[in-house]
């Protein structure tokens, strides 16, 4: 291995060297580069066991449908469908207890995350996505699987007071996704 002449370099799906960060008046997007994303699934009849394992390992159990749970050290467990969750922010390998209680699949290369924030973020999103992101319906702590301009995404509301959302989407559609977000941002909040 030592004399291996070929080295692999990680590359952003956006094609840029630096993590993506752009802003418009009252709206900004930032790539959450390097965020680990794991898919977590419940074994048949093992919901409680998995939730307890998560509670012990991450400091947060499995969330209710359409919600996410904030754990320790930046770990977040977001509901992602029937008996499915996304765990983001794990710094280390998946704890054995979690693997034993549930099923995990690394999706860190398959799913990218951006954070959008600002007073215009809901206005931008209503041009991209059909779900209701109003604070009264989708408050902080909410999570939803929803298509964004026909692309699969997971949207979580981090702070409903300032319109901060984390959006996970598939790597292969990253640039297409970004084009649509940019267009909606330009249209909603022109830079002048």
């Amino acid at each position, binding site marked *: *291995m030592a004399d*291996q002449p*070929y*080295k*692999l*370099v*990680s*590359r*952003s*799906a956006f*094609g840029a060297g630096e993590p993506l960060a752009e802003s418009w008046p009252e709206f900004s997007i930032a790539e959450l580069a390097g965020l680990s994303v794991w*898919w977590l*699934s*419940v*074994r*048949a009849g093992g919901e409680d066991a998995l939730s307890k394992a998560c509670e012990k390992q991450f400091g947060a159990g499995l969330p209710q449908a359409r919600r996410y749970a904030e754990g320790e050290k930046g770990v977040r467990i977001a509901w992602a469908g*029937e*008996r*499915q969750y996304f765990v983001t922010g794990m710094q280390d390998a998946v704890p054995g207890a979690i693997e034993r209680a549930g*099923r995990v*699949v*690394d*999706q*860190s*290369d*398959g*799913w990218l995350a951006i954070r959008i924030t600002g007073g215009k973020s809901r206005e931008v999103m*209503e*041009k991209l*996505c*059909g*779900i*209701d992101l*109003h604070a*009264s*319906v989708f408050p902080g702590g909410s999570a939803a699987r929803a298509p964004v*301009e*026909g*692309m699969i995404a997971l949207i979580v509301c981090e702070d409903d007071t300032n319109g901060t959302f984390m959006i996970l989407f*598939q*790597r*292969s*559609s*990253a*640039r*297409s*996704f970004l*084009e*649509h977000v940019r*267009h*909606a941002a*330009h*249209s909603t909040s*022109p830079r002048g």
Partner: protein
Amino acid sequence: MSARFPHRLVKGGLIDRSETLSFSFDGARYQGFRGDTLASALVANGVKLVGRSFKYHRPRGILTAGSEEPNALVEIGQGARRDPNTRATTVELYEGLVAKSQNRFPSLAFDLQAVNDLFSPFLGAGFYYKTFMWPAAFWEKVYEPVIRRAAGLGSLSGKADPDAYEKATAHCDLLVIGAGPAGLQAALVAARAGARVVLADEDFRAGGRLNCERMEVATLPAAEWAAKVVDELRETGNVRILSRTTVFGVYDGGTYGALEHVNDHHAVIPDHAPRQRLWRIVAKRAILASGGSERPIAFGGNDRPGVMLASAVRTYANRFAALAGQSTIVFTCNDNGWLTARDLIAAGAEVGAVLDTRGADEVAHLREMVGDAPVFTRARVTSTSGRKGLKAVTFLNANGKQVTLSADCLAVSGGWNPVVNLTCHRRGSPVWNDRIAGFVPGSDTPKGLLVAGAANGIFSTHGALVQGTELAGEALADLGFKAPSVGVPDAEDAPYAISPIWHVAEPKGKGGGRAWLDFQNDVTVKDVEIAHQEGFRSVEHMKRYTTLGMATDQGKTANVPALAVMAKLTGRSIAETGTTIFRPPYTPVAIAAFAGRNAGKGFAPYRLTPSHDWSKEQGAVFVEAGLWLRPQWYPRAGEHSWRDSADREVISTRRSVGVSDVSSLGKIDVQGDDAAEFLDRIYTNTMSTLAVGRVRYGLMLREDGHVMDDGTVARLGEKHFLVTTTTVNAGHVMAHLDYCHQVHWPELDVSMVSVTDQFAQFAIAGPNSRKVLEKLVDKGTKGDGRSGDLSNEAFPFMACGPVTVCGGVPARLYRISFSGELAYELSVGARYGDSMMRAIMEAGREFDIVPYGLEALNVMRIEKGHPVGSELNGQTSAADLGLARMVSAKKDCIGKAMANRTGMIDPERQVLVGFKPVAHDEELTAGAHFIGIGREAVTANDEGHMTSACYSPSLGYAIGLGLIRRGNERHGEKVRAVDLVRGRDVEVEICSPHFIDPQGERLRG
């Protein structure tokens, strides 16, 4: 009046006289003010002739002041931005606006095609159904082009639309449609209750009729009260006011379609800003407060420019301070028409007479509002005169005596129709109401939609305010809000009195000309009579025979009078006659708005392979595969066509080594105690017997027994599999697996997730592929399955396992082959995909490695006889594809029972075989049909078709795969491949579909 604006009042109106706007109409320059519509500005400038009618090219003027306008259709903008058939009455005036009349040649004033009007006796309803019947060859080549040129509305520019459009979704507790008194009051009540409200109105100024009438609400001028309410609504923070927005349709689940004219009122649209926005409004409740629209009366010459609806004349005077005429006659059958006379007099304009169809007693209480203006009761207008504009009005007085008065404006009121369209979009039917002589919403309105104000037949302002208040309270209570106490402001509450008249029959010997019902489609009372004579009794049939109620206005001013005429002819009541079906959109919506951003490059999202940038650097030509953009071929200097590139890529790969990014193939991670059992039920062949570290080709069927997809299944662990699918079927297969688990076998312990995007995967194929990989795969990490030994013994055909590459990057290696060569698929995390491709190319440099695209991939799979989408076309069974042995006899699977239906096992079925031209220099084309030698190329002799074809650089001639009856029994037989589309007829020999290495020695080497 001022010298600059001969028809503009010197004061009043809701226009901003401090901002003068220049515009042009048919090349002539005019001026208007901010707050004008194009129509009001034309009225203020004394322009009466604005267009030519659809069929007879008759001069037409402005009829209305709203979106129901049938006449004043103009082209707005120039060049690619030309927008035809735009209602001048809804166009907000802006500086530099360019408008042109349409459907005329060479000019509006002198239109040669006005000659059509002379032939009108021959061009009545249905004439073209009878006239243009033969010869049949003329239908499309002669008749249609001529008719289209002679009759019609505006025309598109023919150029791509340069403007941007977008779509958006709004959610609310209450959608209020219409910002007139009922709508504003409802929105106010809901807003004060804290509900999320969307208030949509098609006008650029909220207020509806409040802006058009001389009246007070809550002791304020009505328009001022409306503005005050709007200000309060804006301040609440929970009301979204969508002005310039027409709610055009009602759809499932409380969803409403609306079109917002975001920037149509600007000459130059700011960068990135949309011209129009299509809203999908999801509302828990909605209140329709769309108001009413006045209807005309049919009489001779009622289409002459200068004949207008009374409410429109009033609107132009009150809201826009523009007089439609210097001398106006009012013709009415209801009290409302008198308001026009009153307001014109108040504005200092001349009212030549008020003609009311009712008796003196019925109108006695109205007389004082018109002062000294002459009043004629029991009067009926019979004709008008004036070449391109009204000069005089002839009517019969109460004594039946014909009287002619000079006038340049005739304000007509035939009563009011509630605008019920949206209440019918879910197949509801309006019901006739004798009190108002109009249709009102029935009991079958869309769920969650309440109707208030004039739209519900309540024509007084006070009544509208009361109903807006009450219905908002009702909606709020349904939604769990506590309705606040909001008082109903004082407003006029006059009763609505009408004695309807639909058509003034021409007195004998005093023919007054044709009486028009549908101005936009040139349909007269006589046309409806002809339809009746022809036996058309259904209102729907009458509509289609006469074209009444069609085109851009959908008969908003025409339908009810026409129904009344038809009712009289049939002896039925109007209620019995009924209406035609109301369908969305309420007003025209540009296709571009429906498309929004999803046009051109943004038509659909696209997906890129991890090595896309590298391929782009190589000058690859890309092609769409599903949503993916995949390299089709990699051209090199000196190559003149895709064939040159594809041939080289095939030859190089088969001779040495090639690489292709196959990341787009679907990849599904399947885990669970019952994962093997689950896959056994999905696939035709058995997966539970697959050893860990091995891969098996799999075939899955649909429920109906036809092949759904194929791919590989790799067993990564005892309870862990990786399923691959074709690129385009990836989503479909994922949904299928989810469905089968959740619906058929929820008891199975299995979990599955798509990992397509997680991995960059590369097919490395060719005799030197192992040597290339040996340079990349790390060695010496024994003990965890990552020995790095790629020898045939250690890593045989259909093996798989984890490895590390390039100094420790985790990867998976699969020894599978689509090309038929010794081949591997190497999978790494997608973030390394670009880098991995570069490393593979670098490692393969000494072997002259080439990247190959989809064309070469396709050639190699045809040479090998692998079916793809062309063969898995939804109509083929496993047996058809020569894969019958893959259907295990020892177990059941999805589709197995249905695959054994009689028709599915018919020996006459078409099966997959190979084809090669008898003359090797002939080309083969996919889609060609197989016809027996000497037989005529007709459907009856069709034996099958060529599913795939290519030139095989390995063999030096064209080859193909195809489905033909009893193909397996006919190897060596010759048939013709007839391609009628491309004009080819090639003699071909049926052969095995495996053209290259039929024993599979290469891929096992």
